[in-house]
């Protein structure tokens, strides 16, 4: 499997990661491209210590951090986000609003684990935290989300 095929396998979830953390489809596309550009440069150094998915998301996260350093953690207005497919628009908007109300670190934890399905251990590796530290962050993020969204 060549690099392009590997990238294609992860293209959608990389885009979703940026879309759900920034809320801006244009920016998500741009940051997604930057992630794959850096992955091209870094592919030669990839030793297989982690899965390709974790490696790609670690790059994506660095791209995100660099972007926030340059421009600040400003989110785009909600109406720029593309509509979903499986839920009603009102519920969808409410979920997205609740997600946006969270701090960036909580939002990122939820996107990785509850949107993209990473295990806490994998997400901890992506973010560069210990598994326990990440579990605490995730626990708080979920509690915070429920508080904002009013679920359960």
């Amino acid at each position, binding site marked *: 499997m060549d690099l392009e095929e590997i*990238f294609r396998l992860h293209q959608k979830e990389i885009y979703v990661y940026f879309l759900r953390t920034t809320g801006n489809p244009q920016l998500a596309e741009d940051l997604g491209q930057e992630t794959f550009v850096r992955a091209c440069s870094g592919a030669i150094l990839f030793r297989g210590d982690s899965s390709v998915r974790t490696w790609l998301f670690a790059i994506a996260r660095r791209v995100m951090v660099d972007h926030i350093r340059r421009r600040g953690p400003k989110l785009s207005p909600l109406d720029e986000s593309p509509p979903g*497919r499986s839920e009603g628009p009102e519920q969808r908007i409410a*979920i997205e609003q609740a997600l946006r109300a969270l701090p960036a670190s909580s939002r990122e934890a939820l996107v990785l684990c*509850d949107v993209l399905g990473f295990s806490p251990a994998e997400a901890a590796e992506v973010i560069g935290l210990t598994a326990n530290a990440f579990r605490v962050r995730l626990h708080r993020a979920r509690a915070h989300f429920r508080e904002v969204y009013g679920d359960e």
Partner: protein
Amino acid sequence: MSNTTPDERPLPLGALAQTESPEIVRAALGRFRRRVLLRGLVLLLAIGAAFVLYPRYFGEPKELAQEIRDARGVILLQKVDGSSVQATIARAARLSHDQVPGKERFGLHVIAITLKSSALDNQLVTLLRPSEKNGVLEVVAGEASFSGFNVWISAAVGTRVIDVPFAAVSRPDGAILDRPLTGTLHLDMQTLNIPDWIWR
């Protein structure tokens, strides 16, 4: 029944992953190729600039003799007769203006010998000195051996005639003799058939 707290259970946010993804990979690969190309070009330009600028600003200046030897020029082996000195113009060359920025120069390698047998005990020296008047920029005399020695001259482009005065000094102390043996070499670039592109 699960014994996990609500905050340990995943939130039902999977639907947020259900979205159309634009084509990112192809654009990323194009961007990567352009970036590699651009960096390669920048690197090549930087290497080229360093190659050109380093000798000009940081390189050791070449000795005139080496400069004349290395520069683009011609081997002449033209004989020039003075009153008591004979010389051979071994080489003429157009010099780079890297060494003296802003000055277009050419160089001559002259091998001079005295024709007077009485001068064998003495050492031949040149009295030529650089000046704006004669167009000469630098004069380097080589180590004398018996009756002859090497002289390397650089002059401003356009200098057609250079008169090179010589004298003989006694060997031990380098003092000019009471009745020094003197002579002048008259170097006319046109008469010597030095190509115009070298000296004009």
